[in-house]
C-alpha cells in the first residue's frame, strides 16, 4: 500500500516535472503596474480591451518600484515579467544597464506623437503624474496658494505632511523660499542650495509628518492629522470623486514626472509585450485613462481627445504645466544616495 502510494507520488512528481518547461513556455503575457486605483483603471481601459481584441490573455502583477528588483530578474535569466511600468530614474539607469528591450518607435506611431518627456530608447511614456500641494477644503475655508503658505504656521496652524526622503522635499523647500520653479535644480546643484533647502526645512521640522505610501497623504488630510500635504494629485481627485471629500490641489509649484512602459530584456513574450505597449499608448485607448485615474496622457493626441471636464486636474493641462516643474531625473540619479544619507542624518537630529 505504502509502496504503491509512493510510486504514485513519484509518478505525479515526474509528470509535473515534464509539464514544467511546457508551462513556462506558455506563460501568459505579464503586465506589472503599481497597484491601487491606477492599476484598476489600467485593467478597465487597457488589459480587458487588449485581451478582447487580440485574444492574448494578460496576467497581472504589481510592484512598488526599485531597480534592484528588475536587475535581479534579468540577471538571473528568470524573466517572468514582460511589461513593467517604471519610474523615469529606473528607466534611465536600467536602459544604460541593458535591462530593457529597445523600442521600435515607428511601430508606436513615431516619437513626435508623444510629449518629449515621454520618449526614450527603452520605454514609452505611460502616464504623467504630479506631486502637488493639497488640502481639505472642508477644513481650510481660505486655502493656501503656494508652497510659501505651506511654511506659514501662523496663518495655517497644524501639521504638514511631506514624502519621507529628499526627493520632492528639497525642491518644495526651495520653492517655498522664493526660488522660481525653473531655477530649482540649478540652485539644488550647488552645495549652498542644498544647505538652504535644509535650513528652510528646519523652520517647520516639528510640524512635519513624513509619509511613505502614496495613500497616506489623503488619509492624513481626511482624518485632520495634517492641514496640508505634498501629495500625488491623482489620488486627491480620486478621493474627491469616490469618497466625496473636498480635497483641493494647488498646481502652483507642483512637480511632474512621467512613468514608462518597458519590456524586460529576455522576455519570452517580447512581441506581445510590444503589442500591448502599442495598444496602451494609442490615442483612442490612452485618452480614456485620465478620466478614470486623473493622470495625464503622454500621447499628444490622446491628451487632446480626453474629456474636457477632467483636463484641469491633469499634469498635462497647459495652465498646470506652466506653473509646474518637471522632475530632473538626472539630478536625482546622481544625487539620491548622498542626499538620502544627508536627509536621514538631518531627520534624526
Amino acid at each position: 500500500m505504502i509502496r504503491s502510494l509512493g510510486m504514485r507520488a513519484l509518478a505525479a512528481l515526474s509528470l509535473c516535472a515534464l509539464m514544467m518547461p511546457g508551462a513556462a513556455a506558455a506563460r501568459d503575457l505579464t503586465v506589472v503596474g503599481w497597484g491601487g486605483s491606477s492599476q484598476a483603471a489600467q485593467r478597465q481601459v487597457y488589459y480587458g480591451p487588449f485581451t478582447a481584441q487580440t485574444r492574448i490573455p494578460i496576467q497581472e502583477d504589481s510592484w512598488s518600484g526599485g531597480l534592484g528588483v528588475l536587475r535581479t530578474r534579468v540577471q538571473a535569466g528568470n524573466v517572468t515579467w514582460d511589461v513593467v511600468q517604471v519610474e523615469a530614474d529606473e528607466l534611465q539607469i536600467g536602459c544604460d544597464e541593458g535591462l530593457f528591450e529597445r523600442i521600435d518607435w515607428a511601430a508606436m506611431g513615431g516619437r513626435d506623437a508623444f510629449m518629449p518627456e515621454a520618449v526614450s530608447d527603452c520605454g514609452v511614456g505611460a502616464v504623467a503624474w504630479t506631486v502637488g500641494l493639497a488640502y481639505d477644503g472642508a477644513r481650510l475655508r481660505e486655502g493656501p496658494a503656494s508652497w510659501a503658505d505651506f511654511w506659514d504656521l501662523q496663518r495655517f496652524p497644524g501639521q504638514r505632511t511631506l514624502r519621507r526622503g529628499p526627493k520632492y522635499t528639497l525642491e518644495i523647500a526651495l520653492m517655498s523660499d522664493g526660488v522660481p520653479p525653473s531655477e530649482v535644480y540649478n540652485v539644488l546643484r550647488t552645495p549652498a542650495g542644498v544647505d538652504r533647502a535644509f535650513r528652510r526645512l528646519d523652520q517647520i521640522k516639528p510640524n512635519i509628518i513624513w509619509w511613505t505610501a502614496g495613500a497616506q497623504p489623503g488619509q492624513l488630510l481626511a482624518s485632520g492629522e495634517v492641514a496640508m500635504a505634498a501629495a500625488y494629485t491623482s489620488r486627491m481627485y480620486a478621493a474627491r470623486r469616490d469618497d466625496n471629500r473636498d480635497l483641493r490641489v494647488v498646481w502652483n509649484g507642483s512637480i511632474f514626472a512621467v512613468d514608462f512602459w518597458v519590456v524586460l530584456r529576455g522576455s519570452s513574450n517580447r512581441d506581445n509585450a510590444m503589442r500591448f505597449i502599442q495598444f496602451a499608448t494609442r490615442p483612442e485607448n490612452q485618452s480614456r485613462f485620465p478620466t478614470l485615474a486623473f493622470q495625464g496622457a503622454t500621447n499628444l493626441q490622446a491628451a487632446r481627445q480626453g474629456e474636457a471636464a477632467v483636463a484641469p486636474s491633469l499634469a498635462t493641462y497647459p495652465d498646470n504645466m506652466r506653473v509646474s516643474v518637471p522632475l530632473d531625473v538626472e539630478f536625482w540619479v546622481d544625487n539620491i544616495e548622498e542626499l538620502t544619507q544627508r536627509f536621514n542624518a538631518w531627520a534624526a537630529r
Partner: protein
Amino acid sequence: MVRQPISRLTRPRFAAWLLVLPLFLFSAATFVVPIVMMLARSVQDPELSRAFPQTARLVAQWDGRDLPPAAVMNSFIAELRAARGTEGLSFAANRLNSEISGFRSMLLRTARTLPAAPLDDPAAALARIDPRWGERSTWAAMRRASGPLTDGFLLAALDRQRNDDGAIVRVPEERAVFVSVLIRTLWISAAVTAFCLVLGYPVAYLIASLPAKIANPLLVLVLIPFWTSVLVRTTAWVVLLQRDGLVNGLLQRLGFTDQPLALIYNRTGVLIAMVHVLLPLMVLPLYSVMKGIGRAPMLAAMSLGARPFEAFVRVYLPQSAAGIGAGCLLVFISALGYYVTPELVGGGGDQMISYFIAFYTNRTTNWGLAGALSLILLLATGLLYVAYARLSRSSAASA
C-alpha cells in the same frame, strides 16, 4: 563490547539524514548561498576593473599626488571609448557615483562626447569635456574604486571613508548616519524586548496557572494577533493612535489631557506598534516553560515557610529563566530586522537599519553598501547572541 547494537543504530540515523537532505539542500540554495554572496559583496569591488581593466591597474599604481600620468589617461580614454554603450560602463558609473555624487552623469556624458580621433593632450581633452577631470579628487575616487577588493563599503557603513590621501577619516557630520542608525536599531529592539517581557510575563503566568477551560480561550486571544499580518496590525495602530483616533478621544474624554497627544509618527508609535506585533513571540515560549513548572514548586516553597513574593523570586523566577531567555532572544532578534512597522508609524528619526539595506538594494543598487550594512547587523546580532549564550551558561552553572 557492544558493537552489534551500535551498527544497528547508525543505519536508521543515516536514513534520517537522507530525509533531512532535501530541506538542507533547499535552505542552502535559497538561504545560505544568497546570504554569503550578499555579504561577500561588501568587500568586492569589481565594476571598475571589469569596465576598464587596464586603467584600473594603472590608476592603482599611481602615487596619488598631482594628476595621474598620461599613460593612465590614455588608457582610460581608449577603454572608455570601447565601453561606450555597454552595461559595464553603467555599472562602473554607478560605482563611481557612490564615491562622488554626479560622477555617473559626468562619466556617461564624457563617454558620449569623447571625440573618435586620437588625442595629443588627453588631460586637456578630458578637462574640456568636464573641468572635474582636472581635479585630483576625481582620480583619487577612481583609485579607491579600482578593486578588486575594497574596505570602502565597510568603512562607509561605519561612517568612515578614505580621503584622497588614503587615510581613514570620519565622513562629514551631515552625512554620518549609519552608526547612529545601528545604535538606534539596537536600542529600539532592546526597549521593545523589555516592554514585551514586562507585559508578557504576567499574561503567560496567568494562562499557565488557569484551568484549561479558561486558559485555552485566552491562549487563542494571544494566537489570533500572531496569525494576523504585520501590515494589518500596524495599519490598525495608525487608526487607533492618530490625532483624532480612538485612543486620543478616550484620553480626552476621561480628562487625562486637553490637547491630543502625539502618539504616532514618532518613537512612541514605533514602540507601541512593535511591542504589540512581537508580544506573542514573548508570551508563547514563556507559557510553554511555565506550563512545565506547574504550581507544585511554589506551593512547596510556601509550605516550607516562604512568603509568596519570596517563593516567586527564589523558586519560580529561576525556573522560568529559560522561557525568559528564549522569549527575549526571539523578540530581540526579530525586532532587529523590522522594516514595515517603523516605516509606517515612525517619524524621520525612527528608521531602523533594514530601511537602509532595502534602500541601497532596491533604489540605488549599491549592493556593496547594502552588503556591508547587513554584515554589520549580522555581526552585532551574532556578538549579542554569543554574549547571551555565555551569560545563560554561566548562570546555569552557578544555579
